[in-house]
């Protein structure tokens, strides 16, 4: 019942976007987000849309998946749009009904917000859809490594993230077993009111926590046995080497970013 949970929603593939260096992908995603937020004109978003559509096409992941990623945020979108629609009072009045009125500016702004948020979600989904969680962790560790000079525990954080990722399937399997074991003893897990169900979760969480602590203890010993000593002087099997395609992709992103800024300056 818990088998189909995937974290990060990674779709393995061999497309150009998949093969890009994860460090570059993170930087490009950040630039992309900046691009969406600096542009104040609807044409900037047009530039953003072209960029997004191009990237999605190159990733060879069905558009359906991206629409799916927007779905959970629909209520949020509707509320944002409604607030802008009814609360912006400037501009020509298009529609009036009792105390509600919709103005031209209000319509423009709410459309603008919707497009911006949809693009934002789709673009950042592209990063997690095309990059495995472990590659992401690795890239974050390397991108943040200058912070080590400020005694920020970059390696430790990355190690924690990768161990968490490693243990998610193991713990899912274990939770499944505990649920079955408790059901076999007559525990009612999916029946009753919200409160009863929440109370029943305790009988699953307690054994899960106990076993997680035991696992952590054993894992720590096993890591020590294999000479783990923190991040000092470590070498890596996974080598990240930037290829020409990474620089080209980065250049394309920067050009788009520049275009968006130019448009917003010119049309101010």
């Amino acid at each position, binding site marked *: 019942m818990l088998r189909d949970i995937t974290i990060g929603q990674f779709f393995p593939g061999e497309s150009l976007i998949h093969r890009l260096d994860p460090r570059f992908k993170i930087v490009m995603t950040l630039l992309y987000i900046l691009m969406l937020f600096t542009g104040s004109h609807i044409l900037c978003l047009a530039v953003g849309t072209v960029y997004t559509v191009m990237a999605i096409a190159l990733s060879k992941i069905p558009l359906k998946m991206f629409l799916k990623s927007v779905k959970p945020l629909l209520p949020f979108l509707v509320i944002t749009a409604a607030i802008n629609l009814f609360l912006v009072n400037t501009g020509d009045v298009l529609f009036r009904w009792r105390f509600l009125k919709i103005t031209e500016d209000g319509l423009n702004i709410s459309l603008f917000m919707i497009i911006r948020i949809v693009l934002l979600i789709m673009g950042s989904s592209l990063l997690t859809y095309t990059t495995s969680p472990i590659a992401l962790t690795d890239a974050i560790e390397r991108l943040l490594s200058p912070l080590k000079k400020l005694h920020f525990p970059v390696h430790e954080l990355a190690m924690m993230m990768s161990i968490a990722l490693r243990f998610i*399937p193991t713990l899912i399997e274990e939770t499944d077993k505990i649920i079955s074991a408790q059901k076999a003893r007559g525990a009612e897990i999916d029946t009753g009111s919200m409160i009863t169900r929440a109370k029943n979760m305790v009988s699953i969480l307690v054994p899960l926590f106990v076993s997680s602590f035991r696992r952590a203890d054993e894992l720590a010993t096993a890591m020590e046995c*294999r000479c783990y000593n923190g991040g000092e002087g470590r070498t890596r099997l996974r080598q990240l080497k930037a290829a020409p395609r990474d620089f080209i992709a980065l250049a394309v992103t920067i050009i788009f970013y520049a275009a968006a800024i130019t448009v917003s300056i010119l049309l101010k």
Partner: protein
Amino acid sequence: MSNIIEIKDLHFSYKGDEETPDVEVLKGIDLNIEQGEFVAVLGHNGSGKSTLAKHINAILLPTSGKVLVDGIDTADEQRLFDLRQRAGMVFQNPDNQIVSSVVEEDVAFALENLGVPYEEMRRRVDESLKAVNMYDYRLHSPSQLSGGQKQRIAIAGVIAMEPKCIILDEPTAMLDPQGRREVMATIKRMNKEKGITIVLITHYMDEAAQCRRVVVMDKGRVVMDDSPKAVFSRVEEVKSIGLDVPQVTELAWELRKAGCDIPGDILTEEECADAIERLFRS
């Protein structure tokens, strides 16, 4: 042949607090293991066998006495990593000793920690994976593998350090029969082909019977230390400390008690079948 492991009068107590007294788990152990040996350590729960194993690569330090591995005192903190490189350890639960989400990265974990350069690391990882017949799975996630396969990955992770000795703490206890066979075959091959000393802690008698030397522990002491044939022929003694003997040995022993002329040191099914056949012929 030189001794890879020398244990001299090893005592170990778990420290108690004000209410509970100290618990002495190991009560004076003397044990020498030569380079290239294949030793099984037997004992029922609480006999101190796992505690002993943890002393060999300095997870625990002796309360008194000495443990030397390849001449290095385990109490010497300066040479801790040197020591752990020489004496690798494999634990019971395969899930709790795999660190990475990709098989080959897990095998590389120890090498990454030791700062081995990339080319050398790549070579050793590939060799270790081939040695345990898991090379084809190098890019898989450990969660996709069976228990036996995970345990072989754990063994590969240790072999990559190029140790002189591997200590396995009940490596097959959580595996199905298929997985147990795979792991035992791998361990034997490592011993034979690479000359790695194996210390196998187990409570499966048939696994102990496959080793060249069996050390039996009871209540924190070594009570027997001999070839499997010699140990298991002392059926009553073995049973008195709560252990079993392999099924065929027990059968032969019962037959002898019943007055049949059958050797008392039978360990394998073939030997047993031969002996019974001879019995019928004569």
